[in-house]
C-alpha cells in the first residue's frame, strides 16, 4: 500500500517534469528529497571555498611562471611560461636551507609548546584551585602586547647585554645571537597562550571517568594525561601543534631580528623570501615561486602530519 502511494507520487512527478526546465526539475527534486539539497549545498560550499582559497595560489603560480619583466597588465593566464624560475630561485638563494631552518625552529617550538601547554591545559581544564582564573587571564594578557613590546629587553638578554646578579657573582647572559634559542624561546612564550587555551577546552571535555579508570589502573595523574586525555583530545592537540608550527614558520619579527639573516645563522624562510628582494627591484616571479615552494609542501606535510598525529595519538603511539 505504501509502495502504491509512492508509485503514484512518482508518476505524477514524471508527468510534471516534462514541462519543467532543468532548474525547476532540480528544485522539485530537492523539495522532495532534502538530502539532495544538503548534498548540493555541500558541493556548492566546497567548490566556493576551493575557489576562494586556491585562487590566490593560482595567481601566485601565474606570477611565478611569468618572467619578471612581463609582469604587468596581468590577466588570468601567465604571460609566457617560465618553469625555470623554480630552479633559479634555488640558485639565487639557498632556499632549502631556510626551509630547513624554519622546520627545525617550528618543530622545536611546537614540541616545547605542546609539552608545557599540555601540562597547563590539564591544570586549567581539569583542576579547580585558587588563582585559576587570575592565572589564565594573566597568561592571556601576554597575547595583548605587540611583539615589539618584548623585543628590546629580549634582544639584550639574548645577545649578552643583560647582567644577571647571582649573589656576589655577576654573569652576563650568554650571547645566543644567530642560534635558534633566541627565536625558539620567544616563540614558545608568545605562542603558548593560544595552545594553553585550546588544550584547556579540549582536555576539559574528556569525561572524568576515563581519567579515573586510568588512575585506578595505575597511572599517575600525569600518566593519565599522556595516555588517555591527550590521545582522546588528539584532534585538538594536533590542531594546536599545527597552529603553532605554522605560526613559527611564518613569524617575522623575532625571526628577522634575532639573527643576521644568513641561512647558516638559523634564519628562517621569511628571511629567505626577502633575500630575493633588491633595494628597488622586486623579482615577483622568484618570490612567488619561493612562496609556492615554501608553503605548499609544508601545508601538505602539516596535514599529513596532523593526520598521523591524530591517528598516532589515538591508535596507541603511546604503546610501549
Amino acid at each position, binding site marked *: 500500500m505504501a509502495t502504491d502511494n509512492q508509485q503514484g507520487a512518482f508518476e505524477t512527478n514524471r508527468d510534471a517534469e516534462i514541462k519543467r526546465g532543468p532548474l525547476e526539475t532540480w528544485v522539485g527534486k530537492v523539495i522532495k528529497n532534502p538530502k539532495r539539497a544538503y548534498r548540493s549545498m555541500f558541493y556548492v560550499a566546497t567548490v566556493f571555498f576551493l575557489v576562494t582559497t586556491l585562487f590566490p595560489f593560482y595567481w601566485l603560480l601565474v606570477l611565478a611562471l611569468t618572467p619578471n619583466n612581463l609582469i604587468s597588465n596581468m590577466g588570468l593566464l601567465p604571460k609566457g611560461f617560465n618553469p625555470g624560475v623554480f630552479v633559479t630561485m634555488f640558485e639565487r638563494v639557498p632556499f632549502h636551507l631556510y626551509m630547513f631552518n624554519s622546520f627545525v625552529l617550528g618543530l622545536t617550538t611546537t614540541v616545547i609548546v605542546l609539552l608545557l601547554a599540555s601540562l597547563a591545559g590539564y591544570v586549567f581544564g581539569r583542576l579547580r584551585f585558587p588563582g585559576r582564573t587570575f592565572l589564565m587571564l594573566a597568561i592571556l594578557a601576554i597575547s595583548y602586547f605587540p611583539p615589539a613590546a618584548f623585543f628590546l629587553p629580549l634582544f639584550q638578554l639574548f645577545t649578552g647585554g643583560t647582567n644577571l646578579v647571582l649573589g656576589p657573582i655577576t654573569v652576563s647572559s650568554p650571547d645566543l645571537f644567530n642560534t635558534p634559542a633566541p627565536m625558539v624561546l620567544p616563540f614558545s612564550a608568545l605562542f603558548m597562550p593560544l595552545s594553553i587555551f585550546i588544550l584547556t577546552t579540549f582536555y576539559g571535555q574528556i569525561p572524568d571517568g576515563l581519567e579515573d579508570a586510568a588512575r585506578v589502573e595505575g597511572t599517575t595523574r600525569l600518566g593519565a594525561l599522556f595516555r588517555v586525555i591527550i590521545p582522546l583530545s588528539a584532534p585538538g592537540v594536533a590542531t594546536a601543534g599545527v597552529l603553532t608550527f605554522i605560526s613559527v614558520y611564518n613569524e617575522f619579527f623575532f625571526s628577522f631580528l634575532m639573527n*643576521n639573516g*644568513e641561512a647558516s645563522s638559523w634564519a628562517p624562510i621569511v628571511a629567505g623570501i626577502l633575500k630575493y628582494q*633588491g*633595494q628597488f627591484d622586486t623579482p615577483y616571479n622568484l618570490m612567488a615561486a619561493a612562496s609556492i615552494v615554501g608553503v605548499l609542501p609544508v601545508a601538505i606535510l602539516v596535514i599529513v602530519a596532523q593526520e598521523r598525529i591524530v591517528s598516532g595519538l589515538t591508535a596507541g603511539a603511546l604503546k610501549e
Partner: protein
Amino acid sequence: ISSTNGGGEGNGGGSTDSGTETAIDTGEVTEDITVQIAGDSRMSDNIQGIREILHNQGGLADNITVEVIAGSQVTNNRQNQYQQWLGSGREEPTLLLMDSGWTIPFIARNQIQNLSEALPDDMVSTVENEYFQASVNTAQGENGDLYGIPMFPDFPTMQYRKDLLRNAGYGDSDFEKWATESMSWKQFSKVTKEAMNANSDTQYGYTFQASVYEGLSCCDFNEFMTSYGGAYFGNPEENLFGPIGDRPITVDEQPVIDSIKMVRTFINGEDDKQALDGITGGIAPEAVLQWTEEPSRKPFTGGDAIMHRNWPYSITINGAEDVFGEDLGVMPIPYGVSADEAQYPMTGGPVAALGGWHMAMNPNAPSKKKQAGVQVLRALMQPDAALANFGLQGWIPPRPSLLDSKEASNVDVIGRYTQQLKVAGENAIPRPVTVVWPQQSSQIATEVNAAYAQEKTPQKAMSDLKSTLQQIENSQ
C-alpha cells in the same frame, strides 16, 4: 634574575661613546683575519668577484678575507637590524653597508666609528675632495667629521622610449641633447603628450612613484619640489641636516605648491582646479598614487609607457637587449626653474634625489678587526676597484671623475648612460636626514599624496604639513 639595566635606563648594552672616536692602528695586520661585512644579497652573490677585486685591484693583503652577510635589501629592515646590533654593542660585523638615507641617525647616536679620527688623513681627504659631494654630506656628522665611506651613489634619471618619441617627430639629435641638457617640465609634459598622441596604443605617458612611502618624501616629491626651487627647510646648504628646531620650514612656499600643482596637472589634466599653468596635463595615470618603484616600472618595461622616472637599477633592466636595448633613452630629471632662478642654492635645475650606500665601521669591533677593516676600506676606495665593482655589481663609482673613464662606459648597458648619471650626480639633492627624518618623512608622504590625490588643496596640505613638521622639530 635581575638586570643591572633596571628600570629602563636602556643604555644600549655595551656601546660606549669612547670607542667611536679612537684612532685605529692602520698598520698591516699580520695574522689571518676575516672581516665580516653586513652587505646585501647582491654582494653575497658576488662574493668571489669582490674578493678578487679587493686583492687584485684593491691590493688587499692575502691574510685578510672578507665575508659578507646579506642583510635584507628592504632598507627599513636593514636599518632596524643595525639599530639592534649596534645598539647592543655587538662586535660583529666589522663593516656595515649603510643607506645614505639613514646613516646620519647612527652618527647622531655615536653608533658608528668616526672615520675622520680613525682613518689616515689621506683616505679622509680623498673622500672629502673627490667624491660626489652630496653623498659625502650624508656620511658626515654635525661636526663635519666623516663616518662612512660612500661606496656607490644612486641617482634617478628619466628614461624614455626613443622609438615612441621618434613617432612623435623627435630624433637622435634631440636625444643627444637631452642626455646632458635636461628639459623643463613644461617641455617634458608637452613632449610626452605628443608622444602619447602619436602612439595611441601606448597606455601611459609618464610613470613615476607617488605612493605613500619614504620614496615619495625622499625622492620623487623632493625632486619635483627642488626642481622648482623649493626646499623643506630653507637653504639646503645650511639646513639640510639640521640644526633641528632651529631652521625654517618652507614647505608652504610657492615653488613647493607649484610642484604639487604640476603633478596634479600631470595626473588630472589641465582642468584640475589646482592645475599649473603651462603644463600639459593628463600624461600620468592616477595609478602613480599607489605606485612604488617596481609597480611603476612594470608598465614601462612592458611597453605601456613612454616616460619613466627611476633608479639606475632599472636602466640595466630596461636597456637590456631583449627589452628596449638602444631604444631606451635616459636623461636627467627635468627642471621646473633653472638653478639661477631658484631661491635657494642646490635647488632648481635637473635635480636628482640622492640614494646610495656607505660603508661604516662598527666601533665595538675588536681592534684587530678594525685594523683589517681599514685595509678593506682602503682597497674598496681604489679607483680600479670602484670601476671593477661598477662592472661587477653595478655600483656607480662614487667619484664623478671615474664616470668619464673608458672602463665605465664599457660596462654593459649602463655604461651607455654614464654621462646622464654624472649630470644627475652633480645635481643630486639628499633628503634632509636627521634623527627626526623618519617621523617627518611619513608625514610628508601622507600630505603630499593627499594633495596629489585631490583630497586636499596643495596650500592646505602644505600648511598642515608645515605645522606638523614644526611640532616634530620642536620635539627635539
